[in-house]
């Protein structure tokens, strides 16, 4: 019975090709939209969480200048002494990394690579959530003496040494001086803005100031706050201290900015949340449209189907055979739609993720859920009208108008 009924169901699908196609299409669109949206939403969330994690927590960044609005205040750079003052006077500051950056070309043998050299202290690695994959960070002696040592990022390693070579102990040339590679940073990958975080060379602050920038300027301070201290309190203290050191009058605005990662994280998380909700709403609408489309097709064909069921009953089909046929038909169509939808969604998610530089995360849960949902839609709209008709007297089904 099952085999014959399957045959009848397949014949019916073939016979009503347009109806079958539209049913499948409705499900494909709904399923593909839901899976793609949810996958992209998850990718965006992951990307934001990763970025926040890679910035390190409890981080406060102080930069000279106020960049709000048209009357942007440039603000003088900080000095080494500012970093010392913060270190000694702000009780809530755990680590302080003064940072200065310089563009430069790094050369090793025949290879050269244009990168950014960051001058800072050994604390830089911990504050910035960097792990040292090989070698070591700076010693206090190296920092004090401004020795020509450096720790390089994965991209710089790859460009200068190739994939397999261990760079620790080698010498590279930066501008006119030779610099010993003492450490290699563990790769972080792209930031969510698309910048390559691993394109980096780190040296002691004094080395960069003496040999490259030629001044005592510090372009920003990265400060990690003690767990026990309040970030807001530290920010207020920082602002007071810096205003005092920069001799700002009471009626003058700050000529520097104090930001914390929590602020950045909150903004980013809120944005992704809104984005994910928006995507979800769009997906829900498309699912609804798909469902209404299927319902429409099925309702339009109810008269024809009822008469067809009447014919089948009249020539001796059992009610359960008719129902099984329609059930198989509905399940085959909606499963087909579900599978095509999943395939389409996978392709679209991978494509869109790479386009938006988001990580692609296959989510079996949403795939399964959409598949089951599509099967349910097919069964509800395909099977239930049939069930009513199959319960009629054959003659009433035949007479249906």
């Amino acid at each position: 019975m099952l085999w014959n009924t399957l045959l009848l169901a397949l014949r019916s699908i073939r016979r009503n090709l347009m109806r079958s196609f539209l049913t499948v299409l409705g499900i494909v669109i709904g399923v593909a939209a839901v899976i793609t949206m949810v996958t992209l939403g998850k990718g965006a969330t992951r990307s934001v969480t990763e970025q926040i994690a890679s910035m390190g927590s409890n981080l406060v960044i102080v930069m000279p200048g106020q960049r709000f609005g048209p009357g942007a205040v440039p603000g003088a750079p900080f000095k080494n002494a500012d970093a010392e003052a913060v270190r000694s006077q702000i009780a809530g500051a755990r680590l302080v990394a003064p940072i200065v950056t310089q563009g430069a070309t790094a050369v090793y043998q025949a290879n050269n690579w244009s990168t950014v050299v960051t001058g800072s202290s050994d604390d830089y690695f911990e504050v910035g959530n960097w792990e040292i994959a090989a070698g070591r960070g700076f010693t206090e002696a190296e920092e004090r003496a401004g020795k020509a040592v450096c720790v390089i990022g994965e991209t710089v390693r790859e460009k200068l040494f190739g994939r397999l070579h261990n760079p620790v102990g080698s010498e590279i040339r930066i501008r006119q001086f030779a610099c010993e590679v003492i450490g290699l940073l563990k790769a972080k990958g792209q930031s969510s803005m698309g910048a390559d975080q691993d394109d980096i060379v780190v040296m002691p602050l004094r080395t960069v100031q003496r040999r490259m920038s030629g001044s005592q300027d510090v372009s920003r301070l990265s400060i990690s706050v003690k767990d026990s201290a309040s970030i807001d309190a530290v920010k207020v203290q920082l602002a007071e201290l810096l205003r005092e050191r920069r001799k700002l009058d009471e009626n003058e605005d700050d000529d520097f900015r104090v930001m914390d990662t929590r602020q950045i994280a909150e903004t980013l998380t809120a944005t992704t949340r809104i984005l994910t909700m928006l995507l979800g709403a769009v997906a829900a609408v498309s699912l609804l449209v798909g469902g209404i489309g299927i319902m429409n097709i099925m309702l339009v064909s109810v008269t024809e189907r009822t008469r067809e069921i009447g014919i089948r009953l009249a020539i001796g089909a059992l009610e359960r055979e008719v129902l099984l046929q329609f059930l198989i038909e509905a399940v085959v169509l909606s499963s087909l739609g579900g599978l095509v939808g999943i395939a389409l969604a996978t392709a679209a998610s991978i494509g869109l993720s790479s386009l938006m530089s988001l990580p692609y995360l296959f989510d079996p849960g949403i795939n399964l859920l959409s598949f089951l949902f599509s099967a349910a839609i097919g069964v509800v709209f395909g099977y239930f009208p049939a069930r009513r008709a199959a319960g009629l007297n054959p003659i009433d089904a035949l007479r249906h108008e």
Partner: protein
Amino acid sequence: MSQAAALIQFSGITKTYGRGQAAFQALKGIDLTVQAGDFVAVMGPSGSGKSTAMNILGCLDTPSGGSYLFEGVRVETLSRNDRALLRRHYLGFVFQGFNLLARTTALENVELPLIYRGEPRAARHAAARAALAQVGLAGWEHHTPAELSGGQQQRVAIARAIVTRPHVLLADEPTGNLDTRTSEEIMDLIVSLNRDQGITVLMVTHEPDMAAFARRVVRFVDGRVESDASNGEAG
């Protein structure tokens, strides 16, 4: 002929449509006995209950009262499923409006009852082709109803009704939608089915010309049998 041998026996069959104020009694107590091998024409004015009676005979509908014996089986005691099986194994129905599956080839339409009977594919195809050949449609197996004339569609419907070798062929105005020439071809076919294969035929018709093919004419008036006579005596 003994009563026990009767193929079909209607006793006091009534049928009421609707309920309460709107109730309408379409059959007011029909007594009718049909022996195996007979060819009965059912005539009568429009609305006299001919179709209603045929649908009950064909187990497509249930009576409101009375008793229906089919080969000695009390049909009104059967379950829905058993009535379906009765239709499947013993009855063939031909409708005025053909009632073929649309966009389905003649062959597939004709083999449909055999699929429900669970016949294997090869036997099914052979039987369906033979039935189509019998109604003069050899070579038309792969045409869909839309590609066939009215007369050809009715032949497909007859082939579908007889492919299972039913005991009874019930035809409700089988030529009602066809012109005279085509009608006579269909009648010749039905007559030969009755004469050569011994299929019992009950046929509703409005046309005395068509009723003339039958051996017996039952006349309905207002939900009752008004007259029941062998052809010739009917006048």
